[in-house]
């Protein structure tokens, strides 16, 4: 028998969105809340975010939420839902003040206000020039958000189930009733019965070879809801951050360019002047990553293999680098043996962020189809969700804003719902599917190793479905994924124990990753245009007549994949060509 738990609201994931959701759900005194995470909360990847959280506070120069909303829509190549962007741009201002009131140690202006700096794609007066909008705490803003929210959760005495790995969602007659989880320390299965379930489990960057993402980011819940027949929205829009450390992918914040850093090719040329004449190195990430790939393709990459670009900070005052960018300076020194104060840093685009995810309304309710039919009792926020704030390309700093604005909304909405409904019955045997999956893996005797399949997945996704794509590379990747899926059935594990069987969980996670890759590749193959981060060499133009719509990817009962659509919510910003 599984261990049984009952909470009005269950939050899955303890990063920025999950902790914010738990905080707000718990403020409703009529509901009991618990957070489930496969990590200790402070290990969540929100803590790796560096540069800042964008909000139009206007502490350094004039700024307005309307400008932020416009930049977000334009940055998203007009696939952003404009009602979401406008609500976001206004609410994120309050949310940042709220973090400060919780004690978040922002860096400060000489007047003692929250310090702000420039970031890619954030402009004054609808695109005129870069504006200081990113509120920052040195280059560890995400760390400070995660720490502050975790600290407050101790004050609020939030209930945590740490190192519990969610394996399944209980979805009966169209409504969510909770989750099934595996306790890492004991190998026991637990069933969490809930009136409302909030999914806040982050991204899926581990499907790519070079990534800024933690090992834990394997798209677990994006896969689980997909297996339960729910759609994934816009998975083809996957962001490559321009400045990952060469070969290892560790992130170097865009704040480095916000502070004046310059990208140079092997001739020392500031090549972004050719691609984005007005804001140059602070163009949105999709454009900068493509420009870097093109420079390398055309023989202007740096290094013996001509396969990287230089991030040059050497002209910036050493004190400013040490004070505002200490962590990334250390990363370059430790991992590449390069001192950014004295020499340029080798960088390459690194898989960073899923714009798509589990589709939700503006109130974070998960939707089941292109008509927007709500799944009762199911909510999602943060990178795992698609509201859709980021459209086809997310602006830097809008991920942290997304966490706090939509994490908060999820907590409030889920608690409100849980307070007014009764528990739906929890059917017997809801843990069977998860149990059978684990038993199947434990009993498998095939000769495949999970690590080999994962590496092939990561290598081939990088080759065939990353910054540039064509029908040929995507068709090839569809075949490769089918083959990897067959081989996955032959994966066996050596560890037959119950206590911290991390090998077993890695196999489960690989299964999730394969589903995430499938969603991305089918969606990318379907969309025969180029928009934002989705760049088709065989369809280079944006095509608003045909493709100004969201993608919805479903898995049919027979295992085949179906690609549908959902309308984009337009508004006052007419789609225009995207130049900077």
């Amino acid at each position, binding site marked *: 028998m599984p261990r049984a738990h009952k909470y009005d609201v269950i939050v899955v994931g303890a990063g920025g969105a999950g902790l914010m959701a738990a905080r707000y759900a718990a403020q409703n005194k009529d509901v009991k809340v618990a957070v489930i995470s496969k990590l200790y909360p402070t290990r969540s990847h929100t803590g790796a975010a560096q540069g800042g959280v964008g909000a139009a506070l206007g502490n350094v120069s004039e700024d307005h939420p309307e400008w932020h909303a416009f930049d977000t829509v334009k940055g998203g190549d007009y696939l952003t839902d404009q009602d979401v962007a406008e609500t976001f741009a206004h609410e994120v201002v309050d949310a940042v003040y709220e973090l400060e*009131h919780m004690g978040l140690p922002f860096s400060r202006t000489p007047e003692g*206000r929250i310090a702000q700096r420039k970031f890619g794609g954030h402009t004054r007066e609808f695109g005129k020039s870069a504006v200081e909008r990113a509120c920052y705490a040195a280059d560890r803003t995400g760390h400070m958000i995660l720490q502050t929210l975790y600290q407050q959760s101790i004050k609020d005495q939030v209930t945590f189930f740490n190192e519990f790995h969610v394996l399944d969602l209980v979805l009966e007659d169209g409504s969510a009733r909770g989750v099934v989880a595996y306790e890492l320390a004991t190998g026991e299965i637990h069933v969490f019965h809930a009136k409302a379930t909030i999914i806040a489990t982050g991204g899926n960057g581990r499907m790519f070879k070079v990534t800024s993402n933690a090992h834990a980011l394997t798209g677990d819940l994006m896969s689980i809801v997909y297996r339960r027949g729910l759609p994934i929205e816009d998975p083809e829009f996957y962001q490559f951050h321009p400045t990952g450390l060469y070969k290892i992918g560790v992130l170097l914040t865009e704040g480095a360019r916000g502070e004046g850093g310059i990208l140079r090719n092997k001739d020392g040329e500031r090549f972004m002047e050719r691609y984005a004449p007005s804001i140059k190195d602070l163009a949105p990430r999709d454009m900068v990553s493509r420009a870097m790939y093109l420079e390398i393709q055309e023989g202007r990459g740096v290094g013996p293999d001509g396969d990287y670009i230089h991030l040059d900070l050497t002209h910036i005052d050493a004190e400013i680098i040490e004070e505002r960018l200490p962590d990334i300076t250390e990363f370059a020194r430790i991992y590449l043996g390069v001192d950014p104060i004295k020499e340029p840093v080798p960088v390459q685009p690194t898989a960073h962020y899923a714009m798509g995810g589990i589709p939700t309304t503006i109130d974070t309710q998960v939707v089941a189809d292109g008509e927007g039919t709500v799944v009762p009792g199911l909510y999602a926020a943060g990178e795992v969700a698609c509201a859709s704030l980021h459209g086809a390309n997310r602006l830097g700093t809008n991920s942290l804003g997304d966490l706090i604005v939509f994490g908060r909304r999820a907590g409030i909405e889920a608690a409100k719902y849980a307070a007014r409904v009764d528990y739906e019955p929890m059917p017997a045997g809801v843990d069977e599917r998860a149990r059978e999956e684990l038993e199947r893996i434990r009993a498998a005797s095939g000769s495949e190793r999970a690590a080999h399949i994962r590496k092939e997945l990561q290598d081939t996704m990088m080759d065939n479905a990353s910054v540039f794509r064509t029908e040929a590379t995507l068709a090839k990747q569809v075949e490769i994924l089918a083959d990897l899926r067959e081989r996955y059935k032959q994966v066996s594990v050596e560890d037959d124990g119950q206590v911290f069987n991390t*090998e077993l969980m890695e196999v489960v996670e690989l299964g999730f990753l394969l589903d995430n890759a499938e969603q991305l590749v089918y969606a990318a193959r379907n969309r025969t245009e180029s928009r934002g981060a989705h760049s088709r060499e065989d369809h280079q133009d944006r095509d608003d007549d045909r493709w100004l719509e969201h993608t919805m990817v479903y898995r049919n009962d027979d295992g085949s994949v179906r690609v549908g659509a959902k309308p984009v919510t337009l508004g006052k910003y007419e789609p225009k060509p995207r130049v900077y």
Partner: protein
Amino acid sequence: MDATTPAAGTSAPPPGLDTMNVTVKIKRYDPEKDARAYWAEYRLDVRPTDRVLDVLNQIKWEMDGSLSYRRSCAHGVCGSDAMLINGVNRLACKLLVRDLGSSIAVEPIRGLEVVKDLIVDMEPFFDSYKSVLPYFVNDDPEPARERLQSPEDREIFDESTKCILCAACTTSCPVFWTNGNYVGPAAIVNAHRFIFDSRDQATDERLAALNQPSGLWRCRTAYNCTEACPRDIPITKQIEEVKRALLWRQA
């Protein structure tokens, strides 16, 4: 297959000029199988620029799947993988093979119960952390905008905001090894972070929590914590600052 050719899809580097052969000793323990911990030895080819975490991954993925350890971000910001490496507490993801040479010994951090291999029970560590009120307290009505704080006041507690709760400091402390109830350097650093924050109002409660038999005064200034910190926090200095703050209050 040629013995020198890695299998397709293998995560091991191809042998060549840029690889080196290392011997890795790992202190292993499986509570379901072993009466006591033992040293296991692995020989493998790695790159000098590999992180120790990459080496552990290579062993787990290619040689012995049952090897267990915690890891997540792999670049020193999540705090999952503090270990005793060649006798010193380090994050496995922030230490490169070239800085260790060809002989590497990895053990779990000390003073916390070993659950399996390199995984220890972190609960006592987090309990100590929670005991110092590690959260911001200010009961004044919230202003419409931010509370003001000068850059100089913000700078005073800057270093202590870097803590990632990896436990490298606390589990390198000889006082903690002999007295597991000692609150430990990590908790004191996190008290420091609020005690010296000009906006916070709970200094008295926090200092009272530290002024206990197993609190602040157990520190014997061994400096192990400062040397172990992967975030370069001057921990011993901060503990002294908290001691002084407590003495000032009492005076």
